[in-house]
């Protein structure tokens, strides 16, 4: 189950707009690593994840799953290997947490095959792993934001994927849930999964990712280890904001701190 997801000369856009949202992006996500997508709002992070999850058709270029163009594979086959956690999930009806997680088995069972004992074991494992066992019979919408996000991650785990794509999984969550979810993501990658995650918080990216891909205005500016990407020069150019980059006291990855306006050095 060593699965590589790669992007070749990927250009994506939306109908009626001339400017592509992503232009000529190349990158490869490898098994066992967390690849974090960082960059300002509108950089193209979500578009890249949508293209990688076979939802958005590229205008040019390809997304390849172990070398196969994902648009030449059936949706079901891709979904057996690639799971996706979107930024906002609005469920139309009050399904319970267990029903939501069970739908992660859809790509493996299709329209009609009944769920097997195996499926039930995988569903229970996903509930346990995300700490949702106690919530399993509650309607999803009665849970807090963090719990709902974990339920969608549990659904992705029930897909038993080899690649996990997450779009801002900790946005709007409090400190505890940020850490629990990112710890889980790290653990999954250490277990052999290929993880691509978009993150706003650069320090999250530094702590949890093996490599960072810095995007701005639809272009991939740099890709590499946190220390190589999170430099003051890179960040000030992309975010147009002064930052101080120091070292994390515990794991020595870069620690990014924005500089408040009152403390800014005068422009050169």
């Amino acid at each position, binding site marked *: 189950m060593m699965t590589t997801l790669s992007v070749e000369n990927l250009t994506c856009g939306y*109908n*009626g707009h001339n400017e592509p949202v992503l232009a000529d992006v190349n990158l490869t996500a490898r098994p066992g690593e967390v690849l974090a997508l960082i960059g300002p709002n509108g950089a193209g992070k979500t578009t890249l994840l*949508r293209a990688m*999850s*076979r*939802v958005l058709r590229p205008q040019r270029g390809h997304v390849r799953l172990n070398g196969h163009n994902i648009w030449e594979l*059936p*949706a*079901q*086959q*891709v*979904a*057996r290997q*690639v*799971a*996706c956690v*979107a930024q906002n*999930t*609005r*469920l*139309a*009806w*009050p*399904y*319970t947490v267990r*029903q939501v997680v069970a*739908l*992660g088995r*859809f*790509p493996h*069972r*299709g*329209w*009609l095959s009944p769920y097997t004992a195996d499926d039930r074991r995988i569903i229970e494992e996903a509930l346990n792993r995300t700490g949702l066992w106690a919530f399993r019979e509650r*309607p999803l*919408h*009665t849970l807090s934001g963090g719990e709902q996000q974990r339920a969608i991650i549990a659904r992705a785990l029930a*897909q038993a994927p080899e690649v996990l794509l997450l779009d801002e999984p900790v946005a709007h969550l409090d400190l505890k849930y940020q850490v629990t979810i990112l710890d889980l993501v790290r653990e999954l990658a250490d277990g052999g999964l290929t993880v691509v995650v978009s993150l706003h918080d650069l320090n999250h990216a530094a702590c949890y990712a093996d490599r960072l891909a810095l995007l701005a205005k639809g272009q991939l500016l740099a890709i590499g280890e946190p220390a190589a990407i999170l430099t003051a020069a890179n960040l000030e150019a992309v975010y147009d904001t002064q930052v101080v980059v120091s070292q994390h006291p515990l794991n020595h990855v870069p620690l990014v701190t924005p500089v408040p306006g009152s403390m800014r050095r005068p422009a050169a």
Partner: protein
Amino acid sequence: MSHRRYFVTLLGLTGLLVMVLLLSLGLGAVHLSPAEVWAALAGRTPWGETANRNADRVTAVIIWDFRLARTLLAAGVGAALAVAGAAFQGLFRNPLADPFVMGASSGAALGATLAIVLNLTVTWGGFGAVPLAAFLGALIAVALVYFIAESVGSAPPAIALLLAGTALSSLFSAAVSMLTVLSELRLHEVFFWLLGGLGGRSWPHLWAMLPYLALSLIALQALARPLDVLAFGEEAAQSLGLEVRRARLLVVAAASLATAAAVASSGIIGFVGLIAPHAARLLFGPAHQRLLPASALLGALLVVLADDLARTVLAPLELPVGVLTALLGAPFFLYLLRARREALGD
């Protein structure tokens, strides 16, 4: 809800429907007790008389030639509309969707009006021109809406379908109004047909709608899991491996076939397809595998009861059953809104 409780409740509802059907057979100008109804039913089958000859001949004729087919047809129409409503609500992720969101009612109305106004006399398999034209009108309208929406391409597909459905419905309704105004003499006939009713319906109507109903019920039941996946939205459904386009086409086709068959049998009966799925969702939760059969049962119950009232309240005058479903349904719907907000969606 556990499997066991689900099946017990479903069985209970089925028992209730059978009881209501038996009681309904006793209602009318000649009142019959349940025992007389039972004796008449036991005395014959649709294929001829049985050895049991205890039943009175007149009672047997009333039951077999007049009331039974009509009552069963009411149940079938209710089931068809309710299942179509549940399917469209699921497809559009919208609690306000009903069997007519894609223009089936206005298409049927236009077909029926044309047949009435033009005085068409085509018959086929025991059917007059009006139900045939309504059936075709409904299917043509939905097909038009579907192909227009698919060819627009810019809006999200489900929303494009809703918008195209609304636009074409208005267009067809305008055409119906124009035709009725232009042919004053037939105005009453058109108006009465549009309100929906089961008066004078008999076995050929029932036999004609049953295959479509059965086909739609089976097809939609097979689409239960895709409808669940669609509750996450079309993009998430696709990333879960659903071929969304194919699933959407099948849901539209199956639900529209059920709707067209219902409309051809009884005119446009409103509210059942909106309300029965909500009531079923309250009782059994949102998972479509359970929701669809439960909706069918509740829809059947609602239309049978409405038809009972329609032919007894002002007897010998018969009210359009569509008026009764709205009279019964609207207050119940408001109650649901008040009592269980979450069941109508988030």
